[in-house]
């Protein structure tokens, strides 16, 4: 990551959500590979985690299997791990970005903040642009699923 104090607003993304579950359960769903694959990928995708060494400098290898048979490899390195509070990881596969997830206990609920910081504006724009193709792919998949459902009916 660049060590600049300048604004990162043009190459970052922040998503927040109030999850309807206590923080210990949210942490469990985040920190165990067998749980992550149940919610990580887009609809129609499955995932395999061959390694998830949840500690600073630990490796994380996750492969998303697309419905068309395409595999998307994701290699990351965990940077910060504070149980029930914070996880950050550096996504080393292209596109490179630093992802920081913070968990805030709010009784029976958990406020989650997901921050993504890309190396530079170029990579960020390139990523959102190539995502366009993935969106199209998803629509195709959903069309195919509808079609198959129609065949079975």
């Amino acid at each position, binding site marked *: 990551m660049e060590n600049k104090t300048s604004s990162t607003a043009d190459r970052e*993304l922040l*998503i927040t*959500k109030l*999850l*309807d*579950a206590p923080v210990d*359960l*949210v942490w*469990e*769903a985040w920190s165990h590979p067998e*749980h992550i694959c*149940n*919610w*990580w990928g*887009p609809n129609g995708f499955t995932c395999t985690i061959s390694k998830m060494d949840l500690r600073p400098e630990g490796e994380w290898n996750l492969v998303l299997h697309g419905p068309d048979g395409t595999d998307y490899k994701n290699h990351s390195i965990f940077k910060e791990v504070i149980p029930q509070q914070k996880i950050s990881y550096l996504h080393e596969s292209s596109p490179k970005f630093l992802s920081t997830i913070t968990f805030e206990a709010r009784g029976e609920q958990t406020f*989650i903040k*997901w921050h*993504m910081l890309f190396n530079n*504006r*170029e990579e960020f*724009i*390139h*990523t*959102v*642009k190539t*995502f*366009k193709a993935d*969106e199209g792919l998803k629509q195709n998949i959903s069309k195919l699923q509808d079609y198959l459902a129609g065949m079975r009916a």
Partner: protein
Amino acid sequence: MKARRDVYQAIADPTRRAIVDMLATQPHNMNAIADQFEMTRQAISLHVKILADCGLVNMKREGREHICEAKLEALSEVDEWIGKYRKHYEDKLDKLNQYLQTLKQERHGKQNK
């Protein structure tokens, strides 16, 4: 090969982004833009031409001068794709929330047995 001319290409280059930033506050003529950069006037002129081709800059003649102004509405296309990308992550958190409800029900079920 025909060069790609869209808003992404326009902002893919740091010099072009700096030119857009400069023009966003007020229109400038070509010389005033070139003065701000340590580059030849030709190089700046080429960058401005690409920006114009990409629809991000409008050039008009005033007497002997070429006045350049930014057309920022072209950038909304980028916003749109960022929005779609954001939605992908929002969907992920929605799925996490659904999965958490499943987990809660499973645990609750076990406790009752």
